[in-house]
């Protein structure tokens, strides 16, 4: 039998070089792939797997956790156990789509900065019906296992005949004013540039729903005085960092172009005049990735992981993560740890891909552990701590 090297004596060296090169390339690719993933320096415990589409979580003094469920329930987790009865006093919500496609319902929850003293908590939710629905915010005092003194402090305008694109994340500033993000509700997306509309905006209110006198558009007769920033698509993660005095918010792009932004008073974040994604149709939303007078993100993601939820490590259980942001991802089924230096993103690392779960929210708890909400009709609250 004649072997290859006998038939083609000069080719043996070439074959060897090809094999060595392929092996080297493979090694390089593997190294690059591993560098992007976080080593599994954590262990995960399931606190509960009995939630339906959890959206937001807060931690009460005394150790209880409150979790919103999109179908319209506010649940208590006490000593690591989900309490069977939801909290009473929650308004009726509009859920719209069914099952895992549901985007509306009971959405975000935040505590007043002086919750321990005044017991105020704030809930965002969708209300209305298929023909006309919107996003509203209520506040109520959480006492004796129920919500009391409930009042609506804001309703976004206009109503929309669709059940998608709510956003509705909230964050308090140190002056006890409240930022609320409203999604563009997926067409008409130009509403994000219309200062007479709440859609595609971050608004700022006093803690009782009033308009702060130092909002950027209070003297603009054609603008809603509550608007803080505009030109957003759908913000599903927003937080205030007291150390850097910075508001971070991320928003979903359509097909590509999820963004992370620093939110600053009065600024225009460009949607839909500029963006890094395409429309779901494959066409341009705009021919521009940057537009004069609009802000650029500090980072963006294409393809879209559908970022959702955000938290910041300040004294968390991973000392090496100090100052890093963590965001969850729905379509991407992972979390992303983002290292920031002087307001710029310097590194990103992937976590929790092994869960293969849509991640709706991530929050560091008072104990420094990371709590993760999975977006599932059998939703989970996971507690993540460093591997011992």
């Amino acid at each position, binding site marked *: 039998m004649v072997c290859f090297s006998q038939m083609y004596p000069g080719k043996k060296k070439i074959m060897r070089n090809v094999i060595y090169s392929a092996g080297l390339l493979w090694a390089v690719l593997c190294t690059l792939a591993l560098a992007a993933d976080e080593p599994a320096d954590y262990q995960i415990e399931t606190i509960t797997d009995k939630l339906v589409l959890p959206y937001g979580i807060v931690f009460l003094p005394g150790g209880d956790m409150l979790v919103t469920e999109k179908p319209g329930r506010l649940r208590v987790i006490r000593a690591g156990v989900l309490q069977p009865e939801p909290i009473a006093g929650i308004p009726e919500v509009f859920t719209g789509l069914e099952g895992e496609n549901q985007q509306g319902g009971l959405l975000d929850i935040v505590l007043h900065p002086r919750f321990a003293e005044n017991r105020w908590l704030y809930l965002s939710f969708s209300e209305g019906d298929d023909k006309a629905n919107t996003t509203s915010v209520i506040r109520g005092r959480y006492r004796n296992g129920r919500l009391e003194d409930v009042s609506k402090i804001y309703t976004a305008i206009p109503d929309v005949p669709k*059940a998608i694109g709510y956003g509705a994340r909230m964050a308090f500033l140190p002056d006890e004013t409240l930022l609320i993000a409203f999604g563009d509700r997926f067409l008409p997306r*130009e509403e994000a540039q219309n200062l007479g509309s709440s859609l595609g905006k971050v608004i700022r209110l006093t803690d009782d729903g009033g308009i702060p006198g130092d909002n950027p558009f209070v003297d603009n007769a054609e603008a809603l005085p509550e608007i803080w920033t505009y030109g957003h698509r759908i913000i599903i993660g927003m937080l205030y960092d007291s150390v850097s005095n910075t508001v971070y918010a991320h928003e979903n792009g359509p*097909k590509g172009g999820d963004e992370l932004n620093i939110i600053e008073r009065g600024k225009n974040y460009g949607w839909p*005049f500029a963006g890094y994604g395409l429309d*779901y149709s494959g*066409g341009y939303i705009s021919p521009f990735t940057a537009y004069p007078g609009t802000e650029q993100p500090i980072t963006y993601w294409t393809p879209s992981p559908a970022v959702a939820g955000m938290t910041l490590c300040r004294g968390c259980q991973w000392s090496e993560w100090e100052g890093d942001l963590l965001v969850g991802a729905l379509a991407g089924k992972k979390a992303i740890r983002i290292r920031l230096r002087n307001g710029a993103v310097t590194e990103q690392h992937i976590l929790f891909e092994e869960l293969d779960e849509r991640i709706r929210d991530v929050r560091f708890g008072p104990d420094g552990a990371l709590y993760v909400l999975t977006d599932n009709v059998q939703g989970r609250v996971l507690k993540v701590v460093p591997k011992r």
Partner: protein
Amino acid sequence: MPFAEKITLPRVRRATISYLAAVIVAYVAASIFQSLCVLIVLEQAGAEIPAGDWLRTLLHDLYGFTFLGYAPLGPAILAGFIIAMPAAAMLHRFLGLPRGFLYPLAGATAMATILYIVKLNFYGVTIFPGTRGWSGYGLQLLAGAFGGAVFAGLSKQRP
């Protein structure tokens, strides 16, 4: 003439060329109308878009609507017209209605059906923003009608 004797190579070739031309015309028209609607609305909202960026958008979208979207428009029109044109031919044969009416109507109907099916699969909303509002939607139907008219003209049997 028996039906089988009508299936000649020249007829098949003419029908195929007519069909492909109709699909291309409908797709190009639909793509251009969609892009124009998006750009017009952006300008109405306050964006200033130079002429070069208008052209760049039109050219990008011709590619993007078929190769980059979640509901590829080109293949959808291919599929829609492969049903719509023969359906129009049957109506012409059995009802005697004019070709110049039936084929454009069939093309428009194909476009309407495509847009409806896409909407059903995307939470009840259209992913083609150029079709929101009756004018944008009407332009998409017009694109389908253009394709149907091309098919009517090219497929007509010469004496």
